[in-house]
């Protein structure tokens, strides 16, 4: 039976009568839901709010950076703004966004399950996320923290006059949200795949989320204990990181980066998974090198645990350690390169249509390539000696986290929006905002590479005059980027009310999630999914049941 035919002819006419959004109404049905799809939407609302909060902080300090002097804000306020930006964006947006929104929604659908392995733990993870967020917001409202999101000791543990203990408690609590999500995904992917869904038939989105979950589960606890130690030192003068008590400030850096480096792979792997779904769909062709991409995800997750010392090249770490970490950091770049080449090769002799999700995916490929290549720069020891803690690093990680992750997130939101809401968004506005975002992004962050190599340090409220022109360019870009992000907010809302009905499979994509209605029923499938095709079988019709 051809699901595509049924979709395009009959079901396009009207949406399903009962689906997960209208099965019951009321605040309680949302706040006490155990449906992974509703929980995904709870996360969507929360991470969007945090994103705009972190973005507002960025707008403010980029305004300050229009002039060389620290004239818009006092230095202490500026320091609190960039700290808030980092904390909110990393812990409350980048780490949860794709896994907790798209992952939560899609993992059971893609493997043919009715829900995740532990639905109540899933809801708990959202509450834990919110509670952690509230702690951090309270700390911010009471006056905030000025340590930078990296909390280096002994400044954070002894000297800072700000709400460190409260803020690290917030981050600590939210970490458990990550651990619970990762745990849920690992068990679900291992144990709840539909009959016929072997590991090598899994969509690459699932492989990426599996690799991400390994990191979430193994890395986050180390961050948790590092934050606990900072809080204990602050509250009880335990003296673990304070040299006046014989403590070692660099020990904190090791413990902190042992998590925070793998954390960046938590941020990028899911976005890579999104790209792996979008490119084959809009090329109407199997992905090139499926096994290589799948194993590259695992390789990145594993290797990512062994490179943390590249954040400590100039921290008084030994030369020998520097050499080892530089070498390993070079290795972790290779699987990412493999992915980029495979995605590009998928386009070869494809049948390509231009849709917004593809624009975001291609934007990801280009910008991630730049970000990843500059990773080679900073893994090279003498280059990092020069550019560490300068705007070069800021540009490097923003190319990956914004040019990479956020574009992947937006691409995924656009790709699966019809499945999540049953509605289509306006394609013209979507393309326009993708363009605005792409232009705004590059104008914001490319000048920062130049600024960094020139020597402009990070976290500076005031800077020497000769850096002004490039800073003005960057701030101008930031305002364009901000506008670019607001446009989808508007049209996504509009589409929920006025958008045309999408149908079960508006993109003619492959994958189990497209074989069920849009929006799906609460139990995901009206039939028992059975898989007999490999993933991305675009040369055939989608086989169902």
């Amino acid at each position: 039976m051809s699901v595509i035919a049924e979709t395009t002819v009959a079901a396009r006419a009207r949406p399903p009568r009962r689906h997960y959004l209208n099965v019951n109404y009321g605040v309680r049905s949302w706040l006490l839901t155990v449906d992974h799809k509703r929980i995904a939407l709870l996360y969507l609302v929360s991470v969007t709010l945090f994103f705009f909060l972190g973005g507002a902080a960025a707008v403010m300090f980029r305004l300050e950076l229009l002039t060389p002097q620290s004239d818009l804000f006092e230095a202490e306020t500026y320091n609190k703004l960039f700290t808030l930006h980092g904390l909110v964006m990393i812990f409350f947006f980048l780490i949860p966004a794709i896994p907790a929104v798209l992952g939560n929604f899609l993992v059971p659908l893609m493997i043919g399950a009715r829900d995740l392995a532990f639905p109540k733990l899933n809801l708990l993870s959202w509450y834990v996320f919110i509670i952690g967020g509230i702690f951090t917001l309270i700390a911010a409202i009471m006056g905030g923290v000025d340590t930078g999101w990296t909390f280096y000791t002994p400044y954070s543990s002894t000297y800072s006059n700000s709400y460190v203990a409260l803020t690290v408690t917030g981050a600590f609590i939210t970490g458990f949200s990550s651990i619970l999500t990762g745990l849920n995904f690992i068990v679900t992917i291992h144990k709840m795949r539909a009959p016929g869904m072997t590991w090598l038939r899994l969509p690459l989105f699932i492989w990426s989320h599996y690799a991400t979950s390994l990191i979430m589960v193994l890395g986050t606890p180390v961050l948790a204990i590092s934050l606990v130690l900072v809080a204990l030192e602050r509250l009880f003068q335990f003296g673990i990181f304070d040299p006046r008590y014989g403590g070692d400030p660099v020990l904190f850096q090791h413990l902190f980066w042992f998590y925070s480096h793998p954390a960046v792979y938590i941020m990028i792997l899911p976005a890579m998974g999104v790209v792996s779904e979008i490119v084959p769909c809009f090329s109407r062709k199997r992905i090139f090198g499926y096994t290589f991409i799948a194993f590259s995800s695992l390789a990145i997750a594993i290797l990512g645990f062994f490179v943390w010392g590249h954040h400590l090249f100039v921290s008084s770490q030994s030369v020998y350690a520097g050499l080892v970490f530089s070498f390993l950091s070079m290795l972790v770049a290779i699987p990412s390169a493999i992915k980029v080449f495979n995605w590009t090769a998928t386009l070869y002799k494809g049948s390509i249509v231009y849709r917004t999700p593809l624009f975001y995916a291609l934007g990801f490929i280009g910008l991630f390539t730049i970000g990843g290549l500059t990773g080679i720069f900073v893994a090279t020891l003498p280059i990092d000696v020069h550019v560490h803690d300068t705007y070069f690093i800021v540009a490097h990680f923003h190319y990956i986290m914004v040019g990479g992750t956020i574009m992947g997130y937006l691409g995924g939101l656009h790709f699966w929006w019809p499945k999540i809401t049953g509605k289509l968004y306006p394609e013209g506005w979507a393309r326009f905002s993708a363009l605005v975002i792409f232009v705004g992004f590059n104008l914001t962050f490319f000048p920062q590479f130049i600024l960094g190599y020139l020597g402009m340090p990070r976290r500076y409220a005031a800077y020497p005059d000769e850096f002004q022109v490039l800073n003005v360019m960057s701030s101008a870009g930031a305002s364009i980027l901000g506008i670019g992000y607001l446009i989808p907010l508007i049209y996504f809302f509009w589409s929920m009310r006025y958008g045309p009905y999408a149908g079960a499979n508006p993109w003619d994509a492959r994958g189990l999630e497209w074989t069920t209605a849009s929006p799906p029923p609460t139990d995901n499938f009206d039939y028992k999914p059975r898989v007999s095709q490999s993933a991305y079988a675009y040369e055939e019709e989608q086989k169902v049941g």
Partner: protein
Amino acid sequence: MAEIHGALAHQFDDPEQQVEASTLGMWTFLATEILFFGGLFVAYIVYRLSYPQAFAAASHHLDILLGTVNTGILIGSSLTMVLAVYSAQMGRSRSQILFLAATLALGLAFLGIKGVEYQHKFHEHLVPGAGFQFSDADPRHAAIFFSLYFGMTGMHAFHMVIGAGLLIWMALRAWRGEFSASYYTPVEMVGLYWHFVDVVWIFLFPLLYLIGRH
């Protein structure tokens, strides 16, 4: 097919899948706990290698008798926990509850003795912070030992308190007849957790109490 008391959750296809999922879930969670305690162990190792004399001197101030008794108590509680799970497997509700209660009692005894030890340290001015006094070696380095002592045993005790709560919950459910020979997964999972907490102590005890003792 044996009755399951309606314990099959809607997302699972069959009871076997549910048991496997629960088991993998608990092992994954324990892996996170290993990494969590691991951070503390790394800090301990770094400072012990840096200040061996201060650590040895500080360690001698710990009450080795109480520590050894506690170790015995905890190992005993793991035994009673195993017997509780075995009783559950055999469908023997009464002995299951009894062994869970025994495990709980031993766990509480452990916590009680720990409380006594903490109190002694407080009176001896060995709690790091303003009132800390130490004369047998560099007090700052000894203070790091005691910070790690309180941090590690405190974190361990916190996990035991959670374990105690879980034991009470399991005993209640057993009393309400929710477990049988064909469904006792929660008891098994709590058992895994309890054994893990025991194993952490097996590492903590020699590292903290037995430095340089012959």
